[in-house]
């Protein structure tokens, strides 16, 4: 087990290093710099600014300097927001994205799996159709359309919610719905699809033949296998929701990390781009690791160590 975890940690560090390298050179390859502006800064002043942020050196030197700082876990200072540290910016804004994301994930899984099971249990009956219609609506309405529809109807017309901000508990309702609509739809369909397969498997037939109650069959026997694809999806979904809510954040005026990420790219705020990228990568890798562990829990045959290969 110790060896397993050491291996994991080493591979995460190697991955982060490769990612940092790739992102660094990619980011330097795109035109523009933090000080490109409509009103051109006088060349002498610009030279001084570039020197202050270490951008006057050759790119490979900048890269080595960045890596050295990174080794000390120093993500540096933002080049756009004067004298604000990248760590500070992430700390300030990630809380919003995180809280929103966690709610959205819980709602997605609970509602999605629920709908999927119902649909599978009542395959080709009314409940099946209704849940799948809900699921299809979830996929087919883009979340930014859903968000602005809800904002107008429930916020402006009915006055039930604030149209923007994330200050009161109620402020979470609309953005969470907007964020979870697609995952709900996806999880519901995924669950239905695998549950249908599982329900026709021999061991379920055996269980039925034994006269077990439907509830026991579904939750004790079928769900374990039926939920595996959902577990797989949890990793990317967590990463997607926690990091990819830019448009929903924008529409509901939520000061989350997503907005900073898009902003950092358009501002060419190099240190911030790197910082947020690495931060997101750590989250993604953690989420994927948890997924693997969850696999083992749901299906003991896929133990952590049995992933060494088939033989």
């Amino acid at each position, binding site marked *: 087990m110790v060896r397993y975890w050491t291996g994991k940690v080493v591979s995460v560090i190697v991955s982060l290093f490769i990612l940092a390298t790739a992102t660094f050179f990619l980011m330097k390859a795109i*035109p523009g710099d933090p000080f*490109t*502006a409509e009103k051109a800064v006088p060349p002498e002043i610009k030279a001084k600014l570039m020197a202050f942020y270490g951008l006057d050196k050759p790119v490979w030197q900048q890269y080595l300097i960045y890596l050295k700082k990174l080794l000390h876990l120093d993500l540096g200072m933002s080049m756009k927001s004067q004298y604000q540290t990248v760590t500070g910016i992430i700390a*300030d804004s990630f809380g919003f994205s995180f809280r929103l994301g966690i709610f959205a994930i819980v709602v997605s899984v609970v509602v999605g799996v*629920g709908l999927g099971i119902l649909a599978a249990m009542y395959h080709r009956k009314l409940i099946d159709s209704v849940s799948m219609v809900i699921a299809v609506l979830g996929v087919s309405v883009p979340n930014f359309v859903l968000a602005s529809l809800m904002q107008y109807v429930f916020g402006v017309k009915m006055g039930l*919610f604030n*149209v923007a901000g994330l200050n009161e508990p*109620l402020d979470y309702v609309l953005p969470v719905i907007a964020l979870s609509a697609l995952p709900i739809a996806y999880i519901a369909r995924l669950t239905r699809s695998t549950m249908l397969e599982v329900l026709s498997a021999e061991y379920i037939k055996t269980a039925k033949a034994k006269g077990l109650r439907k509830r026991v069959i579904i939750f004790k026997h079928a769900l374990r296998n039926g939920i595996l694809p959902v577990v797989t999806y949890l990793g990317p979904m967590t990463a997607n929701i926690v990091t990819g809510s830019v448009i929903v954040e924008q*529409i509901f005026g939520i000061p989350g990390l997503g907005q900073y990420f898009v902003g950092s790219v358009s501002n060419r705020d190099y240190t911030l781009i790197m910082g947020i990228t690495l931060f997101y990568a750590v989250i993604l890798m953690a989420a994927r690791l948890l997924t693997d562990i969850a696999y083992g829990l749901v299906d003991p045959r896929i133990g952590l160590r049995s992933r060494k290969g088939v033989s």
Partner: protein
Amino acid sequence: MRKSWLLVLALLLATGTVLAGCGSNKGSSKDQVFNMNLTSEPPTLDPALAQDSVSFTVLTGLYEGLTRKDADGKVIPGIAEKWDISDDQKTYTFHLRKDAKWSNGDPVTAHDFEYAWKRLLDPDMNPASPYAYQLYYVKNAQNYNIKTNNPNHVSDPAQVGVKALDDYTLQVDLENPTPYFLNITSFWTTFPVHKSAKDNAAWAAEANTIVSNGPFKITTWKHGNEIDLVPNENYYAKDEVKLKKVHFVMVKNAATELQMYQTGQLNFAGFPTGEIPTEQIEKLKQTNKDELRIKPIASTYYYNFNNQKAPFDNANIRKAFALAVDRQQLVDKVTKGGQQPAVGFVPPSILGEKKNYREEYSDADFLKPDVAAAKEALAQGMKEKGLTTFPSVTLTVNEGTGHKQIAEALADMWRKNLGVEVKIETQEWKVFLKNRQSLNYDIARAGWSADYNDPMTFVDMFTSNSGNNDIGFKNAEYDELVKKATASSDQHERMQLMNKAETILMKDNMAILPLYYYTGVHMVKKNVQNIVMDYQGMIDYTRASVE
């Protein structure tokens, strides 16, 4: 099983509805709170480093310079209660008021100004002040500020023409007579900075280390989220400040901003830091007639021609494209914000000698849009270039509201009126700027706003060696006229010289394609008084009140 699920869902829905019913909390505007949207985080609140309208909007509340501007844009006393100007107009002596104090109770003195100005001109200031050139009118300021590759570098700060004669007298020596210098002293870059900045480079990044001298002080700065200002009890005119709080939010989406305004979360929306969606303006003109305000501002929307690349290196072809555009239709049907069609470069709200410059020197005969004349010019130009078919050209615009629409409307006009097919390419902002600055385009979108209230802020950008000349326009006569105007202290002569230069740029060469003069479209709730928008479109909320 099925039932318990439904039960849970029903319960969830019920609680949601109940909570929603009692929870809706709309910000009441009766308690003297001014709520507005900054759209994004101000990059800094250090006057020396600020260079964008978001930072400036916050700084307006926090600081006050030597002079202020009243509702009509006229210079009025600020921290300086009066001033003397020498006969050669090159020495200004400011007499500071004695009751001005910083938010921590320290007196505001002439030394604070001297410190602030020399700080931002300091060649070793880090990061360098991007707007330091606002003070280059001051004697030796430029030569002190620029060290590298400058044989005339002045290393001694004492040589810079700003000096505190005593605590309350500030003497400023200028390089040239500068008639608009009192305008400069109300510009954000020239605001004083408290001496505590010396020991803490990061002082302007957090609310608790900012010491300010203006009507308000900052109490909260949640980065990327909100900023709160409350009245500065040490401000000399604190009786004039009626607001109890200024609350800034940072919401990026324009539609959301408007909805926040409509539901009472904001009592100001739109220009300069926000935006009213174009397609909503017409409707708002009917539904919110008393709240929608459209104010002409000193900015011009135009297209760059690449003057060095075929086919737009030919004046007749440039003229053809400019003549073929129906600007009235563009502003009426596409931009819809009450903009004024532009056929010149200097916008109407810029001051001239006695009245506005544009009233004294009309732009009407620079260009008289006319399809027949356009066709003729195109034929003429193509003949001069030896062209039989018009080459494929691209109009490059940056992403963002309205630019694409305007480009599509223009491409359509050129197609219909000239029979020329123009491709449109949208580019990411900084990619676009890089391409434009390196003259890598045929036609490119551009916009320019005034830095100070004088035609010079427009005219000097197309001199051969100007850093902002991204059209490849080089004209010796133009350069000479601008140089003369800079050195002159006679307002009448200056205006004439600048008008001559503008005539060369527009009428003779049509080096750019002007489209319209901007307006600042914004909305203010009926019960909010005394929000003043100046000629640049920046707002002053310091004397506002909520009835």
